[in-house]
């Protein structure tokens, strides 16, 4: 660890893994604090919680033994959707806001590496999305209890894997926000998400005997490229297991989590490489 001492006796410790981690956590903490002081965030969270409560009223339309099921399906649809939407929106704005408000000019000249700053922002946003998902899941659990349902292993796994997917989407948004302006970043991130969600269909089309992706060479090439650069996000979808009440095997959860985190790491490294070379004008 390298320590600098100023003439006035102020000690600065800038080198070493622990100091690097502290800087990353400082940035992450500030990112969390920003959301924590934003009324809009609480507004969105409140609106989402209200929607979940609304599912109780909706469930009255269902047959007697299907009330809990309706609440369960509604929550499993709404929570990941909100988390992904937040990841796209907040991720696309993550760097732009710092540059636009010129706050980055005061931070990057400090003894912090750009990679530490970016990792801190990513970590902060992921923590925020985890809190958001946890808060909504808690609210959902309450509503579910009210309708005679409960938390099962597949539901817990579904929430966990949806969070892994959210981390992936956040890293994609971070990559695009290091490259371009927020609208384009948002559109591109959404594009990657949608392609990822239907990539298993694309794989089927490429293998089918009669489809535009198998018959037209150019489209075949495009399909192959898309399948290479975009992961199969259906990996994180365990709706069938939830529907049937089957336990999701631990090895599947582990493999899916590693798969998602590996893709996230790939996009994060790409974002770091881009951001490291970017002029902050």
């Amino acid at each position: 660890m390298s320590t600098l001492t100023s003439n006035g006796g102020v000690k600065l410790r800038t080198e070493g893994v622990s100091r690097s981690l502290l800087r990353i956590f400082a940035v992450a903490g500030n990112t969390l604090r920003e959301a924590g002081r934003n009324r809009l965030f609480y507004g969105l969270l409140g609106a989402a919680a209200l929607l979940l409560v609304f599912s109780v009223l909706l469930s009255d339309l269902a047959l007697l033994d299907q009330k809990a099921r309706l609440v369960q399906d509604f929550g499993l649809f709404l929570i990941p959707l909100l988390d992904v939407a937040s990841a796209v929106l907040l991720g696309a704005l993550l760097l732009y806001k710092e540059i636009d408000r010129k706050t980055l000019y005061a931070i990057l000249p400090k003894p912090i590496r750009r990679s530490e700053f970016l990792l801190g922002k990513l970590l902060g946003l992921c923590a925020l999305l985890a809190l958001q998902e946890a808060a909504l899941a808690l609210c959902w659990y309450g509503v579910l209890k009210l309708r005679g349902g409960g938390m099962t292993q597949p539901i817990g796994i579904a929430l966990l894997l949806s969070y892994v997917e959210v981390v992936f989407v956040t890293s994609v948004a971070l990559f695009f926000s290091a490259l371009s302006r927020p609208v384009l970043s948002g559109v591109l991130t959404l594009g990657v998400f949608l392609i990822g969600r239907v990539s298993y269909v694309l794989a089927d089309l490429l293998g089918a005997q009669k489809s535009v992706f198998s018959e037209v060479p150019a489209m075949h090439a495009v399909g192959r490229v898309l399948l290479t650069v975009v992961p199969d996000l259906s990996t994180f979808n365990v709706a069938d297991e939830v529907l049937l009440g089957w336990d999701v095997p631990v090895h599947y959860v582990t493999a899916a989590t590693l798969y998602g985190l590996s893709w996230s790491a790939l996009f994060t490294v790409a974002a770091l490489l881009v951001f490291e070379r970017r002029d902050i004008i």
Partner: protein
Amino acid sequence: MADDVLLQLDRVGKTFRTGFWGRPVQAVREVSLTLHRGESVGYLGPNGSGKTTSIKCILSLIQPSSGAIRLFGKAPSDALARARVGYLPESPYFYDYLTPHEVLDYVGRLYGMDRGALKNRVPKLLDRLGLGKAMHRPLRGFSKGMLQRVGIAQSLLSDPDLLIYDEPLSGLDPIGRKEVRELMVDLRKEGKSLFFSSHVLTDIETLCDSVCILDRGVAVAQGRLSDLLLADRLESEAVLELAADAHDSAIAALTSVEGAVLCERAGAVVRVRVPTTRVPELTRRALEVQAQLRELAPRRDSLEELFMRKAVHVQDVGGEA
């Protein structure tokens, strides 16, 4: 590199690509300068002259297209070199949801300062800058002057050797300007080295030993302020008291010296400017018309005159090109 050289720019240039076709725009061209420990260098130039761009290069916010920068003998991308710098950006913007105390706490953690040191230093620093009573109020309600003080406080937190301030006095009211200027004078007395940009000449004249005048990205003049202002010392000024009668004829005799100009007349006292080579002739004429020589001194340029001459010269050259 000698230990007392804190900052060195060697033929630094920055070209931006703008527009759809990536048209090159040279913001900074081959700027070289050196700042030694304890020195105060003013970076002077009109708006758009490349001051902020070169400061961003020094702090690794942008990469220079050519040349080399050494900060404490290291590349600016080295975080260890930047740890010894306190930077105040032009119109400082901080997270407006934070309080001054939180800003300094955050910045301190980026510098790797201990919690104990921060607890001790932050309130003292905020008190020194007159923010003691506002240290727990969010920045979003702060005036420009108060934000500038927060900016200065965060730049001083790590007790840096070198302060790099970009337009530290712009946008402040007269009282704010005076206070910040006095603070900068105090910092100089404490031994801090200062590199600051401004287009306000009086600030530079008050605070700096050396200047670098930048115009359209080119360093058109640089060196010690006293040397630069005397460098083109080709003229002298004489203050003369004329005899009681025949003022007009005496003035006519004095101004008949080749190149002499009457600068000022107040009753029997006149101020005449002549080329230094013509001073003997002027004194001879003064004796002839019985005028008393009260004062004779080489004329010193004001920084404004120097700046206008250098900047206008470059604009002429640019215009011809």
